[in-house]
């Protein structure tokens, strides 16, 4: 991919939080880039560091207790990390928009929806209240909120969860961002409303030519929305590749574990779900070796002692995996191939 197409480049990002119990190493050397117009999904379970990663990029980590201990995040070549609030505001809300999991607590309950959207335009674009309010109506219409002119005068409690998420998307689009970060945007919503919001995001991505970073724990949402996927575990990206690589050529045991833990509607219903035994490592003192070592069915001695490097999978530069099994001298694990084969009959 040409370098100019990468609008966001994150390199070796590390974030820690100081607590009474010590320092939590929440993000441990995360690197990825976002290409213009694509959807990158960051998938992982609670506590894997996916939200902290994007909060660091947005300058939303409270410091203290948080601390960015290393790395860089460049938006079109401009460094985002370590900016003063004033400088950061030239990027966040303008070039990068963000929506959150719980729209009810992310919007101000004492302001009308219209004023909250207008505020963005007044602060960032210097518009008058009148102009900004007028544009707020257009933005709500763009996100398909019926009777937008009446709706702008209402307060968040008068909106349903799905409508609030639309309003939040409208607000994040106010300054035509080139990237929209969506942190679990549909987790709190019903499946029918989830479908509406995902469809809206896909539509806006086409019309506005935005990139989307979608943070989620739901592999089904990933399958529907993503072009590329980063799988996170214990503060690191353990596997990264195209959506097809991740689903049909999974190369990291954790990715496979996640897939086997979910019911598949194509397969046999009598097939037992395979939970991942144990729980994620303690990030106060992260393990010396691979973070997944203790839960991995294919763990080797080496895995306990040394952090796996990032390996290119099957010679495909875009598909990378942090697993010693990808080393050329590693034993071949049939289970990896078997598990992928189970799914390939849907072709």
């Amino acid at each position, binding site marked *: 991919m040409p370098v100019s197409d990468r609008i966001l480049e994150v390199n070796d990002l590390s974030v820690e939080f100081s607590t009474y119990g010590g320092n939590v190493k929440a993000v441990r050397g995360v690197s990825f880039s976002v290409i213009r117009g694509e959807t990158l999904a960051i998938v992982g*379970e*609670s506590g894997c560091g996916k939200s902290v990663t994007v909060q660091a990029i947005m300058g939303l980590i409270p410091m203290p207790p948080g601390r960015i201990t290393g790395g860089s995040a460049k938006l079109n070549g401009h460094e985002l990390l370590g900016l003063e609030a004033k400088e950061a505001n030239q990027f966040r809300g303008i070039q990068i928009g963000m929506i959150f999991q719980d729209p009810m607590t992310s919007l101000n309950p004492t302001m009308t929806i219209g004023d909250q959207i207008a505020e963005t335009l007044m602060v960032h674009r210097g518009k008058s209240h009148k102009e900004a309010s007028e544009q707020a109506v257009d933005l709500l219409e763009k996100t398909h909120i019926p009777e937008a002119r009446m709706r702008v005068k209402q307060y968040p409690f008068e909106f*349903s969860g*799905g*409508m609030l998420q639309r309003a939040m998307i409208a607000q994040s689009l106010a300054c035509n961002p080139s990237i929209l970060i969506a942190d679990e945007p549909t987790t709190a919503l*019903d*499946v*029918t*409303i*989830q*479908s*509406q919001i*995902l*469809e809206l995001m*896909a539509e806006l991505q086409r019309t506005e030519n935005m990139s989307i970073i979608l943070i989620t*724990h*739901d*592999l*089904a*949402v*990933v*399958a*529907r929305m*993503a072009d590329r996927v980063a799988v996170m575990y214990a503060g690191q990206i353990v596997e990264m590749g195209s*959506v*097809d690589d991740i*689903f*049909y050529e999974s190369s990291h045991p954790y990715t496979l*574990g*996640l*897939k086997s*833990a*979910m*019911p*598949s*509607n*194509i397969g046999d*219903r009598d097939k*037992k*779900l*395979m*939970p*991942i035994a144990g*729980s994620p490592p303690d990030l106060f003192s992260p393990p010396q070796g691979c973070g997944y070592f203790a839960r991995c069915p294919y763990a080797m001695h080496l895995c306990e002692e040394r952090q796996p490097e990032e390996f290119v999978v099957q010679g495909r530069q875009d598909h990378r995996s942090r697993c010693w099994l990808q080393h050329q001298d590693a034993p071949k694990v049939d289970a990896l191939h078997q598990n992928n084969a189970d*799914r390939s009959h*849907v*072709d």
Partner: protein
Amino acid sequence: MLIETVQLKKHFTLGRGQILHAVDGVSIAIEENEILGLVGESGSGKSTFGKALIGLHARTSGEAFYNGELLPARFSPKDHLHYSRELQMIFQDPYSSLNPRMTVLEIIGEGLRIQGQHSKSQIRDQVADWLSKVGLHADHMSRYPHEFSGGQRQRIGIARAMIIGPKFVVCDEPISALDVSVQAQIINLLEELKQSMGLTLLFIAHDLSMVRYVSDRMAVMYLGTLVETGPADDVFFEPKHPYTQLLIESNPEPDPKLERTRPHIPIKGEITSPINMKPGCRFADRCPKVMEHCKTVTPAVTSLSDNHTVSCHLYQ
């Protein structure tokens, strides 16, 4: 039939003459040893129905039978004592459903203590036994809920429901607050317990793929009424009611190739308010196949084949 309801209704009075029709005439039977999955959106009344079944809500009208025996509409403390041996519940939120001031021993042992037929040491032994059955450790007994993760708390909630040896358990979204890898652990645990104890389960959830995986039969609820019931695979793969069809179309699959080929036509609008309902099909205002009489006439239940029923004018 272990459990049967006939036109069960639960209405809440809101004041100013407004009535919320949370459950509005649900008739269903659950056979012994069966897992019935109940799906529907938030506000469809599925949790209220589950609670009304085991006496946590007083019924407004209709009947509910356990083993052929009519359950009281409003449980007295004596009824609770009697029926809690047979009917139990596992709750959605493992954080708010455990008392933070009680130890695990007190939480799990409380049911036995209230029944009053066991000594303290017997209770302690049984709690220890149950902790290991649900994959925890007897040492955990003296700890408090905040010392456990979400998945572990849900195991405590399961032990609390099971220790008394119930026949019928309402599982109200037992996994929706949990991570994917932990969900599978809890589902497998429930299935094991169902086998070993011969349980009958009402499994309430909004995750359609999980309900299809877990359940023998599936029931779909919309605004307080059942729109479709049938064997889980029939309902999932050949849904008849327009609402079920749209619900299943909205459900994404963890399979990118499949997702690229299937149409994404989201269902229009949102679930309406169950306050002061009028007659007619509840789904009429969102239904793509709506007909004139749908808006005024409530559809009756139609039997399509073995065990597959639908409440829709298209099939009458």
